[in-house]
């Protein structure tokens, strides 16, 4: 069932030697030729910033685009807990193979062995690189790097900088980027949004961007385009993503023929602050690192639940023997540190059974009392001080005294633009890195692995693999932005903006986005079934009509206009939502973050179907109103033996 469209380019040879062999075989571009080549990078998160900086250092001419006023605002900044690396500094028998294996298993056997092995391999270089850049990782008293544990692993391999690891890693990459901007090798375009991709003779040759400050539509040409625009979790409206995070760049690529892989694989993070009302704009994540020392529970007795809801008792008044530490009960080997999808479903199971601990019935406790007794308040405060402070500011509850309440929320999307081993999409010259691509996390990403993948792609993979393509472009002159392809694409972009702008309907963008979010959460959220997914597909179609006939965008389109930005992004979220539902309907198995209710064991665990679904589902756009075509890339396991994920013993 292999598909001509999907050539994964996985190198031959033993797993541990593939990347080394591949590097030896791919082409390189000489310094004199690098100076002649231009690369566009979309996004300035860990992937985009690290890639642009590294490509600039190599001598390429790079243009980098971000939608914020500074590259440092990218949402990687909000990652809290840490970054994994197979350093084995703790002497707990960690290795490249173990990190590889944990990642494959954590992803429920839906990622490529070769990609994941490479990720584990270069993870070690990332730590070295970040230390050299001055990232202030946590240290022990001997001056050595400290580690903590994270979900889905039995070793301590997570490096961290308090609860702000993403911020510190991004500031490292941003500093490297700034150094190149000062040198002139990278040109930075802030408050610019890519609105379309330009292809010439089937190759990615540039973009159409909107200057968000002036509303001006601009053309930018290059020899290659790199999409590092992050994930599409905001399709749910309420998610842990930043408000401006969006999937528009990826969707534009999809509409030009780049295949979109595994869109239904979205991660629901178990430890977020619960929803408080319908005026809420976003959900706040409480780092997974909290599960190192926090214990998750609900009361054993329904009477206690009712008293809690009526605020007749405080959670700390419920005695130890009346508490159900359900993760420790169900998964003794991993306890509170089971992977995110498992922890999320377990919380849903308890809440569905009526044991949710707040007024909405959608919350469980994350309790630090045992850890505070064991380690003292000072140690806990050193580890999680800023998270505790953030929690108190939002909820007005002091987590040193009473347990946190948490509930799962959409956090990360494993699906994304299909890429081969070189991180190139199905469009020649178009690359995708970080969360924007689909490649390394399969059906579920392990905690502290997003930062690892973003930086692996940007620092250590793309700078090599892009040379293999660009070596064939050294004779190609600079892209002429007066080419008719730019005329045509620019015209389409302007027409689309005018169309949205001229609808002048009744509903603000957010009202429609909330409707989309409700459809997605209800039918394409934590538990999915055939009937619900079909209903979602219908409802999304209706919503699309509603959007294109009733959206209201005030102001003018030739100025700074945040409502227009949101409207353009929502039009694309509707497309993504539909694609997610379609993919979820097709994948009739439960796997990682994708839980099909029809496919579960008697005790509610996921039931994977390796015989029929051990493939990457890559969707090809077939035009407006047409059903996308499914392509399958079979997943071949040469090293790992496929087994049922077991976190019980």
């Amino acid at each position, binding site marked *: 069932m292999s598909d001509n469209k999907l050539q994964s380019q996985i190198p031959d040879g033993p797993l541990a030697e593939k990347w080394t062999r591949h590097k030896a075989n791919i082409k390189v571009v000489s310094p004199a030729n690098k100076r002649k080549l231009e690369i566009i990078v979309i996004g300035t998160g860990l992937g985009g910033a690290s890639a642009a900086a*590294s490509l600039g*250092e190599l001598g390429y001419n790079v243009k980098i685009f971000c939608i*914020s*006023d*500074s590259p*440092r*605002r*990218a*949402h990687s*900044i*909000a990652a809290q807990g840490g970054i994994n690396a197979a*350093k084995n500094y703790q002497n707990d028998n960690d290795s490249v193979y173990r990190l590889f294996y944990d990642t494959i298993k954590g992803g429920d056997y839906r990622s490529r062995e070769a990609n994941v092995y490479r990720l584990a391999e270069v993870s070690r270089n990332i730590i*070295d*690189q970040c*230390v*050299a*850049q*001055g990232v*202030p*990782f*946590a*240290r*022990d008293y*001997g*001056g*050595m790097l400290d580690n903590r544990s994270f979900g889905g692993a039995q070793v301590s391999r997570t490096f961290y*900088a*308090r609860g*702000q690891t993403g*911020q*510190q890693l991004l500031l490292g990459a*941003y*500093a*490297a980027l*700034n150094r190149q901007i*000062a040198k002139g090798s990278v040109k*930075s375009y802030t408050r610019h949004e890519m609105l379309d991709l330009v292809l010439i003779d089937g190759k990615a040759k540039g973009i159409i961007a909107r200057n968000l*400050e002036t509303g001006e539509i601009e053309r930018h040409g290059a020899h290659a385009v790199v999409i590092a625009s992050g994930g599409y979790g905001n399709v749910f409206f309420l998610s842990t993503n*930043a*408000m401006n995070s969006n999937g528009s760049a990826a969707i534009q690529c999809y509409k030009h023929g780049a295949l979109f892989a595994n869109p239904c694989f979205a991660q629901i993070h178990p430890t977020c602050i619960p929803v*408080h*009302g319908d*005026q*809420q*704009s*976003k959900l*706040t*994540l409480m780092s997974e690192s909290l599960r190192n020392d926090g214990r998750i529970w609900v009361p054993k007795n329904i009477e206690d639940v009712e008293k809690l809801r009526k605020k007749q008792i405080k959670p700390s008044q419920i005695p130890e023997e009346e508490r159900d530490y359900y993760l420790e009960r169900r998964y003794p080997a991993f306890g509170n540190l089971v992977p995110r999808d498992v922890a999320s479903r377990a919380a849903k199971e308890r809440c569905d059974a009526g044991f949710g601990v707040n007024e909405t019935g959608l919350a469980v406790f994350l309790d630090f009392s045992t850890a505070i007794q064991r380690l003292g308040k000072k140690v806990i405060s050193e580890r999680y001080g800023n998270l505790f402070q953030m929690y108190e*500011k*939002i909820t*007005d509850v002091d987590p040193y005294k009473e347990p946190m309440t948490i509930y799962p929320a959409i956090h990360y999307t494993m699906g994304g633009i299909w890429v081969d081993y070189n991180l190139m999409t199905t469009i020649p010259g178009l690359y995708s890195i970080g969360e924007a691509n689909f490649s390394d996390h399969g059906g579920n990403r392990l905690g502290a692995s997003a930062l690892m993948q973003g930086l692996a792609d940007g*620092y250590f993979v793309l*700078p090599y693999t892009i040379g293999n393509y660009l070596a064939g472009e050294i004779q190609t002159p600079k892209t002429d932005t007066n080419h008719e392809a730019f005329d045509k694409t620019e015209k389409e972009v302007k027409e689309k903006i005018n169309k949205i702008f001229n609808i002048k309907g009744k509903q603000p963008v957010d*009202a429609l986005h909330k409707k989309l979010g409700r459809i997605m959460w209800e039918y394409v959220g934590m538990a999915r079934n055939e009937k619900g997914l079909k209903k979602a597909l219908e409802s999304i179609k209706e919503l699309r009509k509603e959007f294109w006939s009733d959206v209201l965008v*005030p*102001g003018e389109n030739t*100025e*700074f206009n*945040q*409502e227009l930005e949101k409207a353009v992004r929502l039009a694309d979220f509707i497309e993504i939502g539909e694609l997610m539902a379609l993919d979820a309907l097709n994948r009739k198995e439960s796997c990682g973050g994708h839980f099909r209710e029809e496919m579960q064991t008697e005790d509610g665990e996921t039931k994977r179907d390796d015989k029929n679904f051990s493939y990457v589902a890559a969707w090809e756009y077939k035009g407006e109103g047409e059903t996308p075509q499914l392509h399958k890339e079979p997943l071949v396991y040469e090293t790992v033996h496929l087994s049922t994920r077991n976190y019980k013993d």
Partner: protein
Amino acid sequence: MNFKLKIWRQKNNKSKGRFENYTIENVSSDTSFLEMLDILNDQLICTGQEPVAFDHDCREGICGMCSLYINGRAHGPDDEVTTCQLHMRKFKDGDTITIEPWRSGAFPVVKDLVVNRYAFDQILQSGGFISVNTGGVPDGNAIPVGKEDADESMDAAACIGCGACVATCKNGSAMLFVSARVSSLAKLPQGKIEAKRRAKAMVAKMDELGFGGCTNTQACEAECPKAISISHIARLNREFLCAKLQD
């Protein structure tokens, strides 16, 4: 809860701004300040008016994008939080709330409450980095860093680049911002090598971009949402003076 809002409206960088009055009703005390503005904008849009432009993104206090001057204080009345983490329970029912953009010559207004902080990027581009390329670096544990030094470096590195310090300072000085970066890197052996050159370059850039000088009023520290200490300014001054003496 009900509030009267007095909000700065300004069409663009070239036009003159003015305050406009609005009222907002039935806001839950659990609503965040920015959610309150979302609700207001929803009302404005539905009644055919233009919504208030304001910068925001992560809404969890880390991206540094939100930037409001609320009742005369950067990020509002609560301590050690950004505007997005501020909740309406910090106000009294019926309060009048005045909302302005950051006021600083170095941060031009884009529209309403949105300003540009490109100047911060430019300062960091002038030297806020360690000159190391990707690859070819030693093992992470080959450069031991004392825990206290790492912790202090991290204290300074917590800066989110929001610009509250500049907006608060009567001189419009960026010294707290610059010193946080200089100090964070100078505390680490890997950053020590370029420390003097870095301090000199960043201070020169700051002056060039029109930020004012520091007169030690300590207002910046008091309003910093991440409680960055002005002791970093002392370290910056030390590095800067040493560099100048060596010239």
